[in-house]
């Protein structure tokens, strides 16, 4: 990991994005408001929050399933939100692929694995002849640790972990630069989770991929992510490098998420109290909050008053770490 942000190339840039849904009449529900961050090439950027926080909505806005109601998204420097040409649209689909949560629901159960994986190739005519297509499918299967002879089977003949591998293979075959993984391991058993996480890490290294990893569980994210954004009720409240976020969490919601991770130790876990975070009523007189850089690369959603408290908290945490060292 390089240390300063300036050296790294931005692959995806989300600029002040809002996503709103109509909820009858003229009413709108803002699922995401003012999301603003960059993702660098080659990193795993995690978006963490509970259900209803807007993390999936934001992921879907990137891949143009949900339109942005404000703001812009840039991919490799080109705007990909709003109206774009057909060719650009196709480029986005090809270069940004998705891995979904439930592998059983995201595969066509009446199609063979060969078809499931080839579907993107068919749509984009990414093969000269049938031979090349099959070679590509075989390679994709091999990449995810399955065998070529698996391609004549149907999804129901696979275990949960294998099905998720198929889901990954069908994303990989498009040779994307960027992958949005929406809770890819939440539906899997603990032992299989480890396999899929290892596989994703391996593929990232081999193919120089960039991941947007959407999850609700910080313990998983700590293992896989380089940087983490915590999202709560449509607002990103804290962004930091993974290490930093765990060592110096400043926003109370991040702290509450951390406290909810169950630790595999009965003595400690039985004493640990999880902290429930309830959003304070917005004081109409309070000065508006925005993302502020509290330390280089560490952003938190705050106003002037919050910053004083956060700064104090951070100083305290820093002193603990100094003691440790």
């Amino acid at each position, binding site marked *: 990991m390089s240390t300063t942000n300036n050296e790294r190339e931005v692959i995806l840039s989300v600029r002040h994005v809002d996503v709103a849904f109509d909820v009858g009449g003229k009413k709108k529900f803002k699922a995401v408001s003012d999301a603003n961050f960059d993702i660098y090439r080659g990193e795993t950027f995690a978006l963490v929050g*509970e*259900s*209803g926080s807007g993390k999936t909505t934001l992921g879907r806005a990137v891949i143009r399933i949900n339109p942005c109601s404000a703001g812009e998204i840039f991919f490799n420097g080109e705007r990909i939100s709003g109206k774009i040409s057909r060719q650009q649209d196709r480029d986005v689909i090809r270069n940004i692929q998705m891995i979904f949560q439930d592998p059983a629901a995201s595969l066509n159960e009446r199609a063979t694995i060969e078809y499931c994986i080839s579907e993107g190739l068919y749509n984009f005519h990414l093969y000269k002849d049938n031979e090349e297509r099959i070679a590509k499918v075989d390679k994709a299967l091999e990449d995810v640790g399955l065998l070529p002879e698996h391609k004549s089977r149907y999804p129901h003949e696979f*275990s*949960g972990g294998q099905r998720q591998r198929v889901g990954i293979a069908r994303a990989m075959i498009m040779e994307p630069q960027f992958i949005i993984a929406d809770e890819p391991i939440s539906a899997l*058993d*603990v*032992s*299989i*989770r*480890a*396999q899929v*996480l*290892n596989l994703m*890490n391996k593929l990232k290294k081999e193919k120089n991929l960039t991941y947007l990893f959407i999850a*609700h*569980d*910080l*313990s*998983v994210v*700590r*293992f896989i992510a380089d940087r983490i954004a915590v999202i709560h009720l449509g607002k990103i409240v804290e962004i930091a490098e*993974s290490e930093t976020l*765990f*060592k110096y969490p400043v926003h109370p919601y991040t*702290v*509450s*998420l*951390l*406290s*909810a*991770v*169950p*630790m*595999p*130790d*009965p*003595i*400690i*876990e*039985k004493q*640990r*109290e*999880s*902290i*429930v*975070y309830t959003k304070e009523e917005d004081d109409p007189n309070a000065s508006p909050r925005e993302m502020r850089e509290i330390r280089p690369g560490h952003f938190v959603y705050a106003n002037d008053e919050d910053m004083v408290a956060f700064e104090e908290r951070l100083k*305290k*945490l820093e002193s*603990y*770490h100094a*003691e*440790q060292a």
Partner: protein
Amino acid sequence: MDERRIVLSAKDIEVKFRVRENYLTAIRNVSLDLYEGETFAIVGESGSGKSVFTKTFTGMLESNGRVTNGSVIFYGKRTQNETAPEGEQPAEGGAEEGIDLVQLKSDKDWEGIRGAKIATVFQDPMTSLNPIRTIGSQIVEVIEKHQKVSKQEAKQQAIDMMARVGIPNAADRFDEYPFQYSGGMRQRIVIAIALCCHPEILICDEPTTALDVTIQAQIIKLIKDLQKELGFTTIYITHDLGVVAKVADRVGVMYGGQIVEYGTVEEIFYDPKHPYTWALLSSLPQLGIKGEDLYYITGTPPSLFNKIVGDSFAPRNPKALKIDFAKEPPFFRVSDTHYAKTWLLDPRAPSVEKPEVIQNLHEKIEQMTGKGGAFYVDDE
């Protein structure tokens, strides 16, 4: 510890399913004694039989499944102020009579047990609740079914129960529908329904797997608080060892239709003996080191259609002994409360250390959750 009363005792349970002319053995000779007031956690992968095993306690096996051997004796509650019927059964310690649940066949037989004495909370609250009926009516239905009370009283009980499981403005939300509740709230309602008949045993079948971590923590706390208050016994089924550490007094690890190791929660986490328990603990992402591969279990669980020879985990165990493939290990005693089904505990076995990641587990976690650790949380 031995003084505690047993509320349920399963002996040599075997369950078979008929699948297309074939028989699948889902549970292979599992025994379990459940003590009054404890929380017993059953951990294992999907397909290990943890749900099927507990379904035999409530007669909820799918129609193609049958208990082909063994017994499940349920001992009714006898509190101190409740005296035995006059003239009968003078209180003699230990000579209690139970009901063998395996002998119950029809739904009518089960009526007094299922829901009333042994209740279940399932994984997905949306499939347990009827989407087109109000929350209130679904709770009232259960109260009216099991207790002889007036409509008003049932409604009052339902509202009280809703408040107890943490629904704000319970009276106002009585007439709302499931879709108007969030996932966590729905699960609270399912718990309310399960508890409104004051069961003696509550089976929680992955009650938080479909929920977020923050909500999960709240639901776990709710179940614990209610258990303290109402004094029921809990069976907690999960595949997440982090949750087990939080809730359990004792733990049973299931693999391939058998309990392969059981003990107190401290014994299972700090001194596990079975290679499968080692593997489960080692693969937790909480213990993962960034930049290194997470430990994972290779291969797939055994097919339950075939007869399993030897130790069922042997094919996936890189350090399996020769005998593991030939002969099924018996339970070896580790302590009075801790038993494991592995040949490694045989005096003739070579000494095999548990994996590095889970050695000194307590010290490691202490560091992680202590000041300056990755999971340190200061409570202000």
